């Protein structure tokens, strides 16, 4: 089949077998008539009758062949060539384009292939409008500059005084800048905040910070400067401790022993009922 598919050629001109037969049969006697008819039809309107079309073979050639009959040499029979039926078979060649993987999945998966086959949408995708190009580009440029300025104001203290003129951060400073930006975006704590340290040291740090804050507030008060309201450090919300699954819901387990504090005991016992009526 493959060979047959490949070798078939295009049918060049398709002639009705019937009409072609008629034309060959009537070509000789009615050639002059046909010429008249053709002329008539070209000027007026098509005539009714079996011979509506002029023969496909041009009649001038027929005349020429008549003349040639008188010469000795027969030559090649043109008559035969005129009717040589050149056939090119054109069968739609199997599309070599492989069906897409999506098609395979929809057809060969366990699910029934849906009736509404998705056709590739011919609607063109809307491209961003280029008409008000100038305004938008100016806006974008302004936004960019604004952002750069904001960053410069916030991060200028980290700029290295030694490296002259470059506004980009490098090395350790670059990390610090990144950390600042993260905090701006909403990160809870700095990456550089020390996680583990001796308790005394941490206490010292917090004490120093509090002292510094107090000093600042006192000085401001003395000088008549109004500061922002002091925010009290919130107590942790998680007052109800999350206990492990299956762990005792009261007390604490230490060394394989459940220890109940007085508070726990009181909670278990509930409020003490005082007997009102003594008998």
């Amino acid at each position, binding site marked *: 089949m493959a060979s047959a598919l490949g070798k078939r050629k295009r049918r060049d001109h398709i002639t009705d077998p019937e009409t072609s037969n008629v034309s060959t049969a009537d070509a000789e006697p009615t050639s002059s008539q046909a010429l008249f008819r053709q002329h008539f039809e070209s000027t007026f309107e098509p005539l009714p009758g079996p011979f509506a079309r002029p023969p496909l073979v041009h009649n001038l050639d027929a005349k020429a062949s008549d003349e040639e009959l008188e010469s000795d040499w027969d030559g090649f029979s043109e008559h035969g060539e005129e009717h040589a039926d050149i056939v090119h078979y054109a069968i*739609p060649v*199997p599309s070599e384009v492989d069906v897409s993987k999506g098609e395979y999945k929809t057809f*060969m998966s366990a699910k029934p292939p*849906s*009736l509404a*086959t998705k056709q590739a949408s011919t609607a063109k995708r809307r491209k961003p409008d280029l008409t008000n190009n100038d305004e938008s580009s100016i806006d974008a440029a302004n936004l960019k500059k604004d952002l750069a300025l904001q960053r410069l104001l916030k991060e200028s203290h980290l700029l290295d005084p030694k490296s002259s003129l470059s506004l980009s951060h490098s090395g350790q400073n670059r990390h610090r800048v990144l950390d600042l930006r993260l905090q701006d975006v909403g990160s809870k704590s700095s990456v550089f905040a020390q996680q583990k340290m001796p308790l005394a040291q941490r206490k010292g740090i917090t004490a120093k910070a509090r002292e510094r804050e107090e000093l600042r507030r006192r000085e401001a008060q003395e000088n008549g400067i109004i500061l922002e309201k002091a925010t009290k450090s919130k107590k942790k919300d998680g007052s109800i401790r999350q206990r492990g699954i299956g762990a005792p819901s009261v007390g604490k387990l230490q060394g394989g022993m459940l220890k109940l504090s007085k508070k726990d005991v009181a909670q278990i016992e509930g409020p003490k009922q005082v007997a009102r009526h003594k008998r």
Partner: protein
Amino acid sequence: MATTPQAPLRLRTQRSLAHRLILSTLTGRAVRFQQIRPSSLTHTGLASHEISFLRLLEAVTNGSQIVIGITGTELLYKPGLITGSAPGSGASGGVIRHELPADCIRGVSYFLIPLCLLAPFSKAPMNVLFTGPGVITSATPSGDMSADSVRTAILPLYAQFGITNNIELRILRRSNPNTSGKGGAGEVQLVFGHQVRLPKTVHIMNPGRVKKIRGVAYCTGVSASNNARMIEEARGVLNPMTGDTYIFSDVSSAPYPTSRDKAYSNDKGKTGLGFGLSLVAESSTGSLYSADLASPPAGGVPPEDIGRQCAYQLLESISFGGAVSLAAAPTVLTLMAMGSEDVGRLQLGKDVLRSDSIIGLARDLKAFGASAWGVRESTTELDGDVVVSVVGRGVGNVGRKIA
């Protein structure tokens, strides 16, 4: 169920037994079959695939009664509620496991198509795994379509009734019929998870024009070149008609029967060798026409012949006209008859309508209490088509009404 106990409907012979049982289950009307192969000397009474189908019905329903006469030529069936694969009714892990006997001569589609008709009306999702030494996934000489065609030509039609979600037909293992024509060793799982109160009323009036042809060439246990040869020949026939033709190839090894029964397996233990082709033509409006052919159990037919004949079969199915092919018409008409009390219309080819199975279906539906069909000539330019008007019964899903 039996609020007004009606006398069971009396039907004769084994003709379209499965579909009649489905109608009985859907309408809730008891039915008594008589004269089931009474004159056959060797296979009197119910055949093994019919018994197996009754078992399947019992598995997916609750409270159905089946009484078979001593000779097997009589059968009384009182339907119960369609429960599907609800837990506690034979379903383990939500899956009903149904084993087909080794001497089953029908393809698995004999069970699948009726089961799919029950599934939308079931209480719980339907999830049935067909296993055992009798599962033939390919087309069979008895005229069953392949499991592929069920998936590609029957199940998509449910979408027109608003039943679309969670429907799957997994062909886990392929098998052709054994050399004796009995049994294979395939494995097929049907998941039908969309249950409705009533299927939508449909008006399928426009067959459209065929725009693409898809297909599956399958072979089990034989050389994959058989697939290529079938595909080549089928495309040679079909390509001049539509350029958009593509046939997928699925090659699988021969299945081993899961329950080893010495009587039905050859010495190697492999069964169900063969190859086959399933073709589906889809029209511009979503009408589906299918054709199926597999190598005969005895073998001896070259794959070229199978491919060519299957392609011709598809062209014949298309030439019958109508919006629904002969293979799918019983499913669509039954769903329409079980729909809401409204007139649905369906355009069918005259050759489809006057076939035995459709005329028989119309009579059965009438016997089970559905209203008769109205038939008129199609007004469109397509001559040879008729429009069938079907009034739904409005009974729908009894289990769903209660639950």
